C-alpha cells in the first residue's frame, strides 16, 4: 500500500518538476488534515484521525480559478476493548478487535478564490476521482479480514486562503470538506468523513 502512495506522490512530484518549466502559474500545496468519520463509517471506526496529509499541484488559470491534482493519505484506526464474539462455527472467541483503514485519494480538483488579490480570500473547491482504500481488521495479533479496493471519491471543500511573502505568491490556508468515499465490503457501505485541513502553498517558479 505504501508503494502505491509513493508512486502517486512520485508521479505528482515528477509532474511538478516537468510542468513547472512550461508555466509560471503552478503552486504546490502541502496539507495536514484530520478526518472525522460520519454516518455508518462510525460503526467501523468512530475515532477522529489526526494522521492525514495531502498535496495539491494546482495550475492557476487566473487569479481566481485554479485546477490541478490532489493526493494524500488519511489513516483511520480504532481498537475495541476485549469482548466475546460468536464465530460462524459456533465457537466463542474472546478478542481485542482492531479496525485499520487507509485512504489515498487521487483526484482532479478545481478551486475558486473569492476576493482575489485581497489579504484574506475565501475559496470553494471540488475534487473528484478515485480512492485507494485499504481495510484491515485484526483479532488480537491476527489478521481477521483484509480488503484493498479502488473506488470513486469526491470532496467538496471550503475555506480561506491568506497569501504572504514577497509578491504574495505563497499562502496559508484553512479549510474543511466532506469526503464521499463509497466502500461496499462486508457490512460497510461507505467511509464518508469530514476533513479539516491546514496547508501551505508554494509557487513552483
Amino acid at each position, binding site marked *: 500500500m505504501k508503494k502505491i502512495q509513493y508512486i502517486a506522490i512520485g508521479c505528482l512530484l515528477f509532474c511538478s518538476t516537468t510542468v513547472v518549466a512550461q508555466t509560471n502559474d503552478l503552486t504546490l500545496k502541502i496539507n495536514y488534515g484530520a478526518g472525522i468519520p460520519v454516518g455508518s463509517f462510525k460503526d467501523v471506526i468512530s475515532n477522529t484521525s489526526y494522521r492525514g*496529509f495531502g498535496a495539491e499541484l494546482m495550475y492557476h488559470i487566473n487569479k481566481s480559478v485554479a485546477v490541478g491534482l490532489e493526493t494524500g493519505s488519511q489513516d483511520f484506526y480504532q481498537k475495541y476493548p476485549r469482548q466475546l464474539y460468536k464465530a460462524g*462455527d459456533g465457537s*466463542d472467541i474472546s478478542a481485542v478487535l482492531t479496525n485499520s483503514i487507509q485512504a489515498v485519494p487521487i483526484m482532479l480538483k478545481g478551486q475558486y478564490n473569492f476576493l482575489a488579490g485581497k489579504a484574506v480570500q475565501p475559496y470553494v473547491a471540488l475534487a473528484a476521482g478515485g480512492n485507494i482504500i485499504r481495510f484491515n481488521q485484526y483479532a488480537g495479533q491476527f489478521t481477521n479480514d483484509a480488503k484493498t479496493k479502488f473506488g470513486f471519491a469526491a470532496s467538496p471543500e471550503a475555506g480561506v486562503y491568506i497569501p504572504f511573502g514577497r509578491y504574495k505568491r505563497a499562502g496559508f490556508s484553512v479549510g474543511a470538506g466532506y469526503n464521499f468515499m463509497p466502500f461496499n465490503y462486508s457490512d460497510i457501505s461507505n467511509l464518508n468523513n469530514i476533513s479539516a485541513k491546514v496547508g501551505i502553498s508554494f509557487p513552483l517558479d
Partner: protein
Amino acid sequence: MKQYAIVPFAAAALFLLASCTKDPIKNLNADENRLYITNRDSSTNFSSFKTFSISDSVAIIRNDRQHEKTRDAFDTAFIAAVSNAMVQRGFVPVPKDQNPDLGINVSNIINTYSGYVDYGNYYNDYYGYWDPYYWGYPGYGYYGSYIGTYQVNEGVISVDMFNLKDAAANGKIKAIWNGVIRGTGNDNIANISSNVKALFDQSPYIKVTQ
C-alpha cells in the same frame, strides 16, 4: 533554479507523513495479542458430571505428529491451573483409574513445517496423540462434530475435555469442550493463570449445578 528547492523539501515532508500509519500490531499490549477460543457440544449438560481427571503431561504435537509428552514447570503449572478451575466449578478430581466422568488433555500444537496448523487434522489424528488406553478405554475412538476447523500459523495451547462417563455405553469417547489459547505469550508461565481463567470465564456452562 531556486524554484526547485521546494521539490525535495516537499518530497521529504510527504514521505515522512506517509509513514504516519498507526500500526495495529504495535499498538497492542502483551495481553491484547491473544485470542481465547472455546467450543462446546451443545447437547451436553455439564452438570451431569461430577468427577474429572486431567492428564499428567502435555503432548507436544509438531507438524501433525506427536513429538513428545512433557512435564516441565510450564506443563505442571498449566495442568494445575486447569484442575483448580474445574474444582472451583464444583468438580472433584480423581485418579484416572477411578472411573472419572470427564477426561481432560492438554496439548501444545506447533507447526513449523507448513507454517499453519489445520485443527481438523488435529482431531482426525487425535487417537495417535492421546491413546484412549490412557483413560482405560483401549481401542475406543474419539468423536465430536461440533469442533470447528480453522488454521493457525503459530503454536497454540489446546485443552480438550471428553465424556468418559458415557464412553462404555457409546463405544466411543465424545469430545464435549475445547479451549484454545492463541497468540504471543500463550506459552509464558506468567500468563497461565489469566489464560486459563479466560477460557473458563467464557464457558460459564462448565459447572456441576446449572
